[in-house]
């Protein structure tokens, strides 16, 4: 296997007054070509920021303060905005939670799909033909007629289909899907997840799902990266992550979910305290103040270390955990 995407010590900060406040604290991550990976974490974990940084889409006051993003061996952080634009949409594409933020409300949906291709040098006539095929492929009924509609005339699910058509028009090698179904009804969610997964197979795309939904994770991905307070705390094959979590935060997160087969419906496990605020970072392990397994060593930040088939950033191995 070859690495398609490599993040090395990726750091993102927010400008605040004259100071910089670091929010993503050095993410190391390698995604092999063809893998399907989930990046999970709660709000403020830095999962979406990390992926926006990959795409070079951080907007002021957010900015990259260190590290490298290599796509197919090429460091994207060294590229000009013009060169980056040539890569975005062509080699790597992203779909978001709310399609209204990336669709132009004043432009017919068909024209937007065409533009996703002409921007990368596809002749207009060819782009027009492919647009109709693309709309049909993502499940838009009667593409000839609907291509002339504006985004506001579509339901949320249909808009998401259009965004998928735009993102996949150039057959990118890497797709980043950032909570693409969170705002949709569950039956529509299932349709969109199924569609993206089908297209992923068809195009052989490497796919990164950014999500908080561990059900989606269990069903769709090979490997899971867990983020907490701007750090990767665990990175493991999906079955290992659920059956033998190697970080106390992962274990606590899984325990907070209701067990759909338990008829006694016991209270859900809680995690005491809150994640640290970006303004008030924790010294050492970021999970230490909330961790039931914390020991003195945790005052020093643990590096990601090999654990079974994955990696975890914890000084205390699971066989030493107290209950």
């Amino acid at each position, binding site marked *: 296997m070859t690495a398609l995407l490599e993040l090395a010590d990726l750091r993102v900060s927010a400008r605040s007054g004259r100071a910089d406040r670091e929010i993503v604290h050095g993410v190391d991550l390698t995604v092999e070509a063809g893998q399907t990976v989930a990046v999970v974490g709660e709000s403020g974990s830095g999962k979406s920021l990390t992926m926006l940084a990959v795409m070079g889409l951080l907007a002021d006051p957010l900015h990259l303060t260190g590290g490298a993003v290599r796509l197919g061996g090429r460091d994207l952080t060294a590229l000009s905005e013009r060169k980056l634009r040539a890569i975005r949409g062509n080699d790597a594409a992203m779909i978001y939670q709310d399609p209204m933020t990336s669709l132009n409300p004043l432009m017919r949906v068909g024209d937007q799909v065409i533009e996703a291709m002409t921007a990368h040098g596809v002749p207009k006539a060819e782009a027009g033909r492919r647009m109709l095929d693309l709309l049909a492929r993502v499940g838009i009924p009667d593409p000839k007629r609907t291509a002339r509609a504006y985004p506001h005339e579509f339901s949320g699910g249909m808009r998401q289909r259009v965004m998928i058509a735009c993102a996949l028009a150039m057959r990118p090698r890497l797709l980043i899907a950032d909570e693409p179904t969170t705002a949709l009804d*569950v039956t529509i969610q299932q349709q969109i997840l199924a569609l993206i997964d089908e297209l992923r197979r068809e195009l052989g795309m490497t796919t990164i799902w950014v999500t908080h939904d561990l059900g989606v994770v269990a069903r769709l991905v090979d490997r899971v990266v867990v983020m907490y307070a701007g750090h990767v705390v665990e990175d493991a094959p999906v*079955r290992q992550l*659920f059956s033998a979590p190697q970080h106390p935060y992962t274990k606590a997160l899984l325990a907070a979910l209701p067990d759909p087969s338990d008829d006694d419906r016991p209270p859900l496990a809680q995690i005491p305290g809150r994640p640290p605020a970006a303004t008030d970072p924790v010294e050492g392990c970021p999970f230490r103040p909330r961790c039931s397994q914390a020991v003195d060593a945790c005052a020093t930040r643990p590096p990601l270390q090999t654990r079974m088939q994955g990696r975890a950033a914890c000084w205390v191995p699971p066989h030493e955990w107290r209950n």
Partner: protein
Amino acid sequence: MLTATDLVKQYPVRGGDGVVHALAGVSLTVGDGETLGIVGESGCGKSTLAKLLVRLEDPTSGRVDLDGVDLTELRGPALRQQRRHIQMLFQDPYSSLNPRLRVGQALGEVLAVHRLADGRQRERRVGDLLEMVGLAPAFADRFPHELSGGQRQRVGIARALAVEPKVLLLDEPVSALDVSVRAEIMNLLVTLRRELGLSYVFISHDVAMVRQISDRVAVMYLGRVVEIGDWKSVLDNPRHPYTAALRAAVPAPNPELSQPIEATVSGEVPNPAAPPSGCPFHPRCPLAQDACRRLDPALLPLPLGSGHQVACHVAAERVTDRSGQLTPSGS
């Protein structure tokens, strides 16, 4: 006991002469101390139902009774008095909290408006309410923007409890929260229900959360209840194909299970201004038969009792019209 009887709500279509059938005749009851979960997607009428139950809006027809009092008939002070008994909690209480009022002031205001406590007593009651929802007394001095999502939801619950209601209407109360915070709020709701003897109407699209808290569950689709009964019976042994599809659409957090990715239900929810003929679910239903296209099925008890009711010709193994008249199949 809270009872809704044949509630209908129609809205005029803007700029047209049609009507939207937001609720097409919904009847249900919530017993003392009981939690009724309501599951459904956008356009199913669950939010309209909530507004009618708290009398934020009037039904086109039908009635709502609380402990034998017809709420739809009440006006003025009598209505205000009754309203105290049913309180509503929204998905994001931030939108309903005044950003310029400290938490203590916001709670104190509710107590003042309803003349429930003054002076020292009011202060003590604010402290008690905060304690009830697991917040330290110091939170009385905080502004809403200084609170996390979970803390805001706790304040929302405290405010709803300030008037000592009998029923809480919870409209997607944990949908905007992170997994770990969601667990806290769910546990808090279960504890408060037990300690205060509250009844809940728990409205959500999240089947897992509805399963966690409900005694009975109603599944709504296009302004109707299509299935209702004991939580385990409805959610773990659903009889309506829509309930089954909702269950299948939510993957379990377990990678050892084989969970097909194929969508179980195609298409989208039809426009409530132009509902389909017959059963409202038939255009999306994998089991639809000829009768389903012609006749809108009545919500009828399953043969084996247990209070489980379903509005489906196929599941009930008999073809009825909306009023429950048996119709010979194939005619």
